[in-house]
């Protein structure tokens, strides 16, 4: 381990924990009603949608089919594992075909 890599990893550790702790620190000081409260409730879905959307759109037919398969499997089973498995299986199958 070089000095640079120790510094880089130590820096990653510090900023990442500071972000997690900072969110908790903020949570104690945010109001529980009104716009901010309504806003925080919407954060989870919006963050996850933002996380996945560019990858799905930039992907090809395999990724689009797989995203639809994941959605359909979730509607049918209401549980995580079959939905994930359906998505991965469809990506694999479509890539074999194309």
């Amino acid at each position, binding site marked *: 381990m070089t000095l640079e890599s120790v510094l880089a990893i130590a820096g990653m550790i510090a900023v990442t924990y500071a972000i997690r702790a900072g969110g908790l620190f903020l949570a104690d000081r945010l109001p529980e009603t009104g716009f901010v409260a309504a806003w925080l409730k919407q954060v989870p879905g919006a963050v996850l949608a933002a996380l*996945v*959307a560019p990858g799905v*759109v930039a992907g090809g037919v395999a*990724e689009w089919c797989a995203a639809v398969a994941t959605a359909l499997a979730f509607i049918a089973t209401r549980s995580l594992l079959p939905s994930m498995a359906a998505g991965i299986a469809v990506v694999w199958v479509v890539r074999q075909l194309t």
Partner: protein
Amino acid sequence: MNTPILTPVGPAAALRRGIIEVLPLAASIAAYGLLWGVLAGQKGLSLIEVMAMSSLVFAGASQFVVLDLWRPDDLPVVAIILSTFVVNLRMLLMAATLKPLMVGVPKPLAYAAVFLVTDESWGLTMGAQNGGRRVRLAYLVGAGLTCWSFWQVATVTGRLLGALIDDPARYGLDFVFTATFLALLFGMWKGKADFVPWLTGAGVAIVVARLVPGNFYILAGGIVGSLAGAAADLWRQKRRGTA
């Protein structure tokens, strides 16, 4: 996960429940942890560096991004720390939504538990809160510790196996990440009102990902999408109030 709890649950039961319900997600963490370990080896990270990063940073997305920048002979230390900050900034919003779990929890315990917040442990916990169920901090801790353990074993295994897995995309493993977050997202579905934040967040993220290099799109989509959702929410409330 589908059986609602009506009676109060003790911490031990909540911990166990978190461990069990996160297992499907932990399996996907193992898959892309393995992938990350393999890539880390190709990029010249030593086993000790892999273990230090996985155990103490414990944030998969940022660890993937950093691999892009990693050059052992000329390490861009500042760029690595800055990218980590940008990619992980979404966890500020995530941790801020955990307040209901922290009621009556001692401060030191709360600040230790928040280390275990990841996309998966947090997403599962938010999903479990659906339908007004009260979720204990122990649930998040059980889920988080499980994710942490799987991440350590998988990244170290990947680093040690190295060259055995030549092309992960051939097996569809690169889609594991997307499939996981899609499934988590669908698990949060409460009704048609969710279309506003989801589609706005997705749309903004797609545009920003095209225009701005790096991972700012997660934060941009998350902030604009949630603001749009909140605005729509308050507008509906107001309309109901005056009608």
